[in-house]
């Protein structure tokens, strides 16, 4: 059974079910001989089995069902009356089909069951050869006479008479089911009892459920989650231990139920991916490309609704990668690459989302070509694109009417392009972005919510109103404290200096047309990720994180284009769910100047680089590129532990290798009460660098560095009049964790670096 092909298994399960229906249909037909609908239903079943068995190469099965189908067709079309004899031969046929299916189920092959007799008896009916009523008629019910009866009658017409099947059955090799073999002489009547237990293994372990039922179940669970939220909020107010206890139980059960129901709807992404190899083969053949396909994470599961929704975008991205990404073998050879390109599909779960990546090692996307094309198509003015950072240029790809194919091919490049991908991904609350390096390759990344029905969200307040922000768009939260807001203005537009990079700020009050904010103090910046870019959304407070269920909203509200839906909070109030990409676009319209902010970012990363300066020991300073730093933390000295000679610490529930910068500088170990810890993270690996204090973040021109250096250092630079050693961060990190840079396409969310 393990060896049985998945398709065959499905075929067997489906056919068994259909046969059960067919049995009752046939019996009902005896009472209601003229019923076209019953006949059509029977016909369809047999037709399906015939078609599939032909496709799967089950010749005997196809032969039996073929004659049966012919007979049924005549009955259905009214060319023939239903008689006792026709019912009988049809039932015999059903039995033969069952027998064959059983053999297929247990051995994966039809075995050597002889079906010629059944075929012959049906053919006899078809030909109108009047085999006496009794002869075949008895066959299914009383096995004993069958062996002789038709044998006596039929030889005149057909060499092989009807009854052979029952006899042969006993001899048929049915290793999985000796019991059935012994009961073989009784074909129809006694069969169910004998076959049920051992044979239906495939059908019993799974049932087919109407998707509607699952959808309804999911909706109800959604309501339950909301009711639970309401209970939890009530219990918090009332503060009765018994109520709290009961509520906790309810919450637990609701969560388990939610997970269970979600699980019933989960399907591995392989259901969509299984068609990819063929597609890649065909496309690459027609385009003259050589492509190897790697698929990683086939078993990653998604909600079937989500899976359905990403089918088209995925297909499009794959076509696109082969058509526009991977070069022809000649071009690849010329570029010094192997002639065979590699297309990699990766799927994995991350933070309650599914990430799907489509990477190629092709020619990459040239930002300048994109910009030029956008200007040529009249989508942007030359001035607009001139100063865009590469990451922003890639966003132009998602504009409607943008097609990058220099030559329109039949595979892609018909002008419908990435905008369709983006629209579809947006529609399910996902995000898509792209990273590309010219000559090296391109990676498209989709982040998709696990399920459409229930999503984690952050509830925030703005001008005394509450709004929900989908967690999928949220990167981090920053509170603006009263001492130093960190907010600066570029022209009119506010920006926030986040780990050395400028983050454009969007005030939710402005977007929603509420009363302007009097003071930034106390406000919260929610760092959002939308349309491949980042921005900070200014809100008054953060209330909570809640699991919300998006409810359908009236077209009048949907049409505003700012809200993804509405939900009910624990207190029963209706809350609008913000459509973050739409909010970002609205904000852009509001403050055209935001483009200038991006320029500021772009130029600031030009000749100079953001450097993090830390102090080490008495009077030494070390600089490292800010872009590679994920987080700055402070910890007491005690967190450091020594494991077999290496320093480590527990950081975010992981054992993280530690580099003491004092040792890098050759200062020996120094005692510090508190440590300034610089965390570099890549994928799920991290390395912690330990220093005394974080001094500053500065812009400096690293070209001015002196070449004098020790191991782990690149040289030294002058920062505000002090000599500062420039850390060779890559070498240092690699020393601590040699596999650090092996993490492919690392997830650098929150790292403040967009390469």
């Amino acid at each position: 059974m393990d060896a049985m092909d998945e398709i065959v298994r499905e075929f067997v399960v489906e056919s068994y079910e259909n046969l059960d229906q067919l049995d009752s249909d046939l019996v009902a037909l005896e009472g209601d001989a003229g019923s076209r609908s019953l006949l059509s239903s029977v016909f369809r079943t047999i037709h399906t089995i015939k078609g599939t068995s032909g496709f799967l190469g089950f010749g005997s099965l196809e032969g039996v069902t073929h004659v049966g189908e012919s007979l049924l067709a005549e009955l259905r079309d009214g060319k023939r009356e239903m008689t006792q004899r026709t019912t009988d031969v049809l039932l015999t046929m059903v039995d033969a089909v069952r027998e064959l299916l059983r053999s297929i189920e247990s051995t994966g092959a039809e075995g050597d069951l002889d079906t010629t007799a059944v075929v012959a008896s049906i053919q006899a009916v078809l030909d109108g050869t009047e085999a006496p009523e009794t002869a075949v008629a008895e066959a299914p019910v009383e096995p004993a006479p069958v062996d002789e009866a038709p044998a006596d009658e039929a030889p005149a017409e057909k060499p092989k008479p009807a009854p052979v099947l029952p006899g042969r059955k006993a001899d048929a090799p049915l290793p999985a089911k000796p019991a059935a073999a012994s009961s073989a002489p009784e074909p129809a009547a006694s069969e169910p009892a004998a076959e049920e237990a051992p044979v239906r293994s495939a059908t019993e372990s799974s049932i087919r459920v109407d998707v509607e039922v699952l959808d309804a179940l999911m909706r109800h669970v959604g309501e339950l989650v909301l009711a639970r939220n309401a209970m939890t909020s009530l219990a918090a107010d009332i503060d009765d231990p018994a109520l709290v206890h009961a509520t906790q139980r309810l919450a637990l059960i609701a969560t388990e139920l939610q997970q269970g129901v979600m699980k019933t709807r989960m399907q591995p992404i392989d259901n969509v991916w299984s068609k990819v190899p063929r597609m890649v083969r065909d496309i690459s053949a027609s385009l003259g490309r050589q492509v190897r396909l790697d698929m990683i994470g086939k078993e990653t599961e998604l909600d079937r609704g989500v899976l359905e929704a990403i089918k088209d975008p995925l297909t499009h991205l794959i076509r696109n990668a082969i058509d526009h990404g991977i070069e022809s073998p000649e071009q690849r050879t010329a570029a010094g690459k192997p002639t065979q390109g590699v297309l990699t599909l990766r799927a994995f779960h991350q933070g309650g989302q599914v990430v799907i990546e489509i990477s190629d090692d092709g020619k990459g996307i040239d930002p300048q070509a994109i910009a030029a094309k956008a200007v040529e198509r009249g989508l942007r003015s030359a001035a607009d694109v001139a100063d865009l950072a590469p990451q922003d240029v890639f966003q132009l790809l998602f504009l409607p009417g943008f097609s990058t194919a220099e030559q329109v091919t039949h595979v892609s490049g018909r002008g419908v392009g990435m905008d369709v991908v983006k629209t579809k991904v947006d529609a399910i609350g996902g995000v898509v972005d792209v990273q590309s390096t010219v000559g090296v390759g391109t990676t498209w990344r989709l982040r998709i919510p696990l399920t459409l029905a229930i999503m984690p969200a952050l509830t925030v307040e703005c001008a005394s109103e509450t709004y929900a922000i989908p967690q999928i768009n949220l990167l981090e939260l920053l509170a603006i404290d009263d001492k130093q807001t960190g907010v600066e203005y570029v022209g009119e537009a506010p920006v926030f200096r986040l780990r050395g990079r400028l983050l454009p700020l969007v005030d939710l009050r402005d977007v929603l047309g509420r009363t302007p904010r009097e003071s930034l103090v106390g406000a919260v910046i929610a760092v959002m990720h939308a349309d491949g870019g980042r921005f900070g959304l200014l809100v008054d407070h953060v209330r909570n994180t809640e699991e919300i269920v998006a409810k359908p909203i009236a077209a009048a509200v949907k049409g505003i284009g700012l809200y993804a839906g509405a939900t009910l909070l624990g207190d029963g109030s209706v809350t609008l769910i913000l459509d973050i990409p739409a909010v970002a676009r609205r904000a852009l319209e509001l403050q055209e100047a935001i483009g200038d902010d991006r320029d500021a970012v772009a130029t600031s990363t030009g000749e100079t680089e953001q450097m993090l300066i830390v102090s080490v020991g008495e009077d030494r300073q070390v600089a490292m590129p800010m872009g590679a730093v994920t987080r700055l933390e402070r910890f007491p000295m005690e967190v450091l532990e020594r494991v077999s000679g290496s320093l480590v610490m527990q950081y975010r529930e992981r054992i993280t290798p530690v580099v003491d910068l004092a040792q890098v500088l050759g200062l020996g170990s120094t005692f510090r009460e508190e440590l300034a810890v610089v965390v570099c993270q890549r994928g799920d690996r991290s390395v912690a660098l330990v220093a005394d204090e974080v001094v500053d973040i500065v812009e400096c021109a690293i070209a001015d560095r002196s070449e004098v250096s020790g191991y782990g250092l690149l040289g030294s630079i002058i920062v505000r009049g002090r000599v500062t050693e420039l850390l060779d961060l890559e070498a240092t990190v690699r020393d601590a964790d040699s596999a650090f840079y092996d993490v492919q396409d690392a997830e650098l969310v929150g790292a403040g670096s967009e390469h």
Partner: protein
Amino acid sequence: MRHQLATFKLDDCLYGIDVARVQEALRMQAHTPVPHAPKGVAGLVNLRGQVVLLVDLRVRLGREGFGEDDDPMMMVVKVDGEPVSLLVDQVGDVLEIDGSRFGSPPPTLEPALRDFVTGVYQLDDELLLALDVDLAVQV
């Protein structure tokens, strides 16, 4: 032929809606405003777990909308099977009126109302305006 109409008052005019279209009448509940919504959308309200659109009928009928101090009532009507809540001054009785009393709106009816009224019922002491519900909720 008797017509059954659920009635309500708005600015001293009496309006009627076919009773079959009306789901229920309720006191005004806490509702959520919708920034940038078209005029006539008063917000969203939680009706037994369903998020229902609130339509300010005054605005729709070309009048000053309900303000903070008003205490309107909600008339929940079904449009394409989905509930929509109309904000009205006061919900009245269900009247059973003979079909023969139905006629086309008088020429004196103000133009702002004309589009939203399918006809009038001549009552003994006043006029009952038959509201075109489908049009009224199309904000």
